[in-house]
């Protein structure tokens, strides 16, 4: 067996093994969260994580719409009953329930430790007297039967005070006992899933079930009644579905277009099949590398990576376009390899820069592209020629046509002019140059986001944007800090600086506070004396308050309430999201509502001068994070370009050739930036990262345009090959530009426009004699 056959056999074996690995080992994720940055500080990381997996992420907002208010109310009641029965939710609220309990017992038993009203004078004669008179009023009220039972053990009404503090303010209006929007066009429900909001698979199943339940309710109802659903989970599912659908649709469309185009250009199925050899090898190697490095590959990386590796189709095309009756495939390969090698290396260096981006999405892409490109190039160099049949010759290309391109070379002044024009456009454009909002990258449609804002408004469940973060060594530390913070927050709420807050100590006071309250509970004899005095002249049955005396006495010795006590109650999840342990230290987060003036509030918090408490504006935080990554990527791209130039200069052993090779790239970059801006978009992280691709493509074109080519036929083949290469690239990225996912759209648009400009400018900058016929 010849050496060639040996390599071919080895190749087939490797491919088979690779396919098996790819099919069995590679895990494809499509949660957007996997691609987002993790934050630069420990606190940021912790926070982002908490926000993604915490309570806010698990809330779903539901609305029943399209009927008379009475019908909607009835639907809401039945709907909530059925939802509760599924067991998927820690909470289903439609306004119809009071705090109903297991929790009731917990609160009642610990009322003297939990109630904020227990202080020094809570059980003085006068306080007791006031409380008892209020109980008489209660007995006269129409609701007497509901409160009567608690009076003997809780004459000071602590139980109901705690309940009202726990049930929160800011609730929607009601109609027939259930929450409705102000105009009564919707019945509103709030559910909290057990599954995390970012767990798109679990969420999708739950949403499916919610819809089924709703449809089954609908059987007896007018068909106009329909369900609206929003929340982080809904976004996650939509993002995932959009990504999966698009990646599949786009990569299929792109692949089909490229294959068709290749066939149309060369009229040879053999060529099309041969060109797949480096591509498949590259994709497989890229996939396995990412899987090995990260443990999973993201759907976007895969989709974009495959599209991006479409670029490596250029390599076999270069080979085929130089094939002629005079040399065998391996010989031709040997001849063009030095030029190709520089192109491959510089492109790979460009993508390697992504490895330093520190942004999971881009790092994955970098690994995928670098490994894929190197593999594809190696396969084109050493394996592909072995598979080219001896008889294979691509369609002859007419040697005369390049001369028609001759006028291009007279257009050299156009390039500086275009660059100036592009820069002017950027300077005077009304569209901001840089994308500032992370939300601009979300694949969730604007209509869905609008609905989300509206329903949150109506339900009084605003998106969590502002937080106070309280850190401490122990849970007790954090609780004590939180209580100190409450003292400061309360006046801010009363004066309207903030709309409200949800503080962990509202549910679980610190041990110190609980003990403090215990210390205010009087001894049995004192309490008995005060009570007797207070009861004078009031018509309560003698001995009625014996349970009260016993309760206070036992509360004096009761161990403080701990977090554990909330296990298996509706408050467990809430408590866990408000306070948690992380690597041995504790953090409490305090969601804040309706801050009118964020700067003012930030100043106020800074004025407290407490190191343990920080104010975080999540939106600003994540946008800032985005900006930081974008700037970093920008620097990386510039550095990449420098390194590429140096490598080029060394590879070509000449600085003079750098001009014609680099100027098309610079021109193309400026034009791309201007075109993106003119189309009303701002440059994001992903546009910038794609400039690397444009640079890689531009290099490839420029190198081959400037390659000394002996014969006229050879020149025409080279040019034809370049046209085919660039057209496939434009096709692929043109398809991507049509994506509704902002990230993919950004990449597609940048690369499609970029590759067109690179080709045009490289053609213009080509050496004089290139197009001339002999």
């Amino acid at each position, binding site marked *: 067996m010849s050496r060639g056959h040996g390599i071919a056999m080895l190749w087939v074996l490797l491919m088979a093994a690779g396919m098996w690995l790819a099919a069995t080992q590679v895990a494809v994720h499509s949660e957007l969260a996997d691609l987002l940055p993790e934050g630069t500080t420990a606190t940021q990381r912790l926070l982002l994580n908490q926000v993604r997996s915490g309570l806010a992420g698990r809330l779903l907002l539901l609305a029943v719409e399209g009927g008379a208010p009475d019908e909607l109310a009835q639907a809401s009641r039945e709907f909530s009953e059925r939802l509760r029965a599924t067991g998927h939710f820690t909470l289903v609220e439609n306004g*119809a329930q009071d705090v109903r309990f297991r929790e009731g017992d917990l609160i009642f038993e610990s009322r003297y430790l939990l109630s904020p009203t227990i202080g020094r004078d809570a059980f003085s004669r006068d306080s007791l007297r006031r409380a008892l*008179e*209020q109980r*008489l*009023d209660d*007995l*006269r009220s*129409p*609701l*007497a*039967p*509901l409160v*009567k039972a608690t*009076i*003997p053990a809780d004459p000071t009404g602590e139980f109901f005070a705690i309940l009202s503090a726990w049930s929160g303010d800011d609730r929607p*209006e*009601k*109609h*027939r*006992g*259930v929450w409705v929007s102000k105009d009564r066009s919707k019945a509103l429900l709030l559910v909290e899933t057990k599954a995390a909001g970012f767990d798109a698979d679990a969420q999708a199943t739950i949403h499916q079930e919610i819809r089924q339940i709703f449809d089954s309710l609908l059987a007896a109802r007018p068909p106009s009644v329909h369900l609206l659903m929003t929340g982080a989970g809904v976004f996650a599912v939509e993002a995932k579905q959009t990504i999966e659908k698009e990646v599949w649709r786009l990569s299929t469309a792109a692949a089909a277009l490229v294959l068709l185009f290749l066939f149309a250009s060369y009229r040879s199925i053999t060529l099309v099949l041969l060109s797949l050899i480096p591509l498949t090898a590259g994709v497989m190697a890229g996939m396995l590398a990412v899987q090995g490095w990260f443990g999973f590959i993201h759907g976007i990386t895969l989709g974009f990576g495959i599209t991006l590796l479409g670029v490596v189709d250029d390599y076999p095309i270069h080979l085929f376009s130089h094939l002629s009756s005079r040399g065998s495939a391996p010989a031709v390969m040997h001849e063009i390899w030095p030029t190709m090698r520089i192109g491959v290396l510089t492109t790979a260096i460009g993508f390697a820069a992504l490895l330093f981006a520190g942004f999971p999405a881009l790092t994955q892409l970098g690994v995928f592209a670098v490994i894929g490109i190197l593999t594809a190039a190696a396969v084109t160099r050493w394996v592909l020629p072995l598979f080219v049949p001896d008889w294979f010759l691509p369609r002859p290309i007419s040697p005369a046509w390049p001369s028609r391109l001759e006028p291009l070379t007279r257009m050299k002044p156009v390039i500086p002019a275009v660059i100036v024009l592009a820069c002017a456009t950027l300077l005077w454009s009304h569209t901001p140059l840089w994308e500032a909002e992370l939300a601009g990258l979300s694949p969730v449609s604007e209509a869905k986001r609008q609905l989300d804002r509206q329903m949150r408004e109506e339900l009084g469940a605003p998106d969590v944007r502002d937080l106070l973060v309280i850190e401490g060594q122990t849970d007790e530390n954090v609780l004590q800090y939180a209580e100190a913070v409450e003292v400061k927050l309360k006046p801010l709420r009363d004066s309207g600086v903030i709309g409200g807050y949800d503080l962990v100590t509202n549910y679980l006071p610190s041990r110190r506070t609980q003990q403090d309250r215990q210390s205010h509970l009087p001894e049995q004899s004192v309490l008995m004396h005060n009570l007797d005095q207070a009861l004078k002249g009031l*018509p*309560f*049955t*003698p001995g*009625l308050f014996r349970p009260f005396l016993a309760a206070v006495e036992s509360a004096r010795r009761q161990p403080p309430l701990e977090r554990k006590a909330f296990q298996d109650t509706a408050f467990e999840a809430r408590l866990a999201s408000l306070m948690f342990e992380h690597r041995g230290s504790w953090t409490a987060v305090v969601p804040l509502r309706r801050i009118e003036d964020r700067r003012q509030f930030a100043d106020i918090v800074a004025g407290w001068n407490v190191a343990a408490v920080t104010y975080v504006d999540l939106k600003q935080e994540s946008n800032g994070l985005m900006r930081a990554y974008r700037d970093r990527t920008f620097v990386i791209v510039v550095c990449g370009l420098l390194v590429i130039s140096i490598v080029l200069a060394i590879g070509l052993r000449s600085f003079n050739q750098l001009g014609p090779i680099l100027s098309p790239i610079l021109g193309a970059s400026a034009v791309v930036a201007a075109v993106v801006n003119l189309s009303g978009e701002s440059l994001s992280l992903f546009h910038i990262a794609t400039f690397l691709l444009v640079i890689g493509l531009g290099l490839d074109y420029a190198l081959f345009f400037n390659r000394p080519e002996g014969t006229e036929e050879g020149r025409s083949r080279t040019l034809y090959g370049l046209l085919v290469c660039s057209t496939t690239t434009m096709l692929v990225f043109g398809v991507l530009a049509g994506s509704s996912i902002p990230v993919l759209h950004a990449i597609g648009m940048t690369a499609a426009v970029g590759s067109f400009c690179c080709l045009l400018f490289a053609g213009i900058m080509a050496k004089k004699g290139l197009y001339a016929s002999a």
Partner: protein
Amino acid sequence: MTFGNRLGSVIAGCGFVLVGVAHNASGSAWTVETLIGLIKVQGESSVAFEEATYSSLLTEPIISRGVLRFVPPDKLEKIVTAPSHERYVVEGDRVTFESERRGIKRTVSLDDYPALRSFVEAFRSSLAGDVVQLRNIYEVTMEGTRGRWTLLLRPHESSGKSVVDYILLSGAEGRIATIAIRSPDGDRAVMTLLPGAPR
């Protein structure tokens, strides 16, 4: 076909009988409808009341005084002037409660307190002359004569039952004299409407 015809005439006959009864009722018979028609208040009206609340927690009843006001079609107001100032205003679906002693003013929806709803409807429907609504919520039994009657209301709804066992109104002609409300645990409140107050 013969059978069908006969059935038709039977139904027609029943119809005649029913119409006859209905006609008779609207004439002179002493029925719930007649009574409610008498009670029905045309314009705005107020009446002073004295209420005694008996509870198993208490050795003697609590006495309170005040004014009841009704503004058709659905605004009902109870103003307590002694022993301390309190005010309940029910308007449509909303109940506003004010208490001087507690220094609070709070508005809730009747829907939040189904028990309260049935309670309020007893008064509102009677005063507005809405027999249908009254029968929706209560089983209505009337006894006595036009000159001295009692009207017993027992709630159908289970949630209503948790606060109200029954409501017993008594009076003469179109004037309500007392309203007794008994809760399931035996506690009760007896409200006496004082004659002579402006109507």
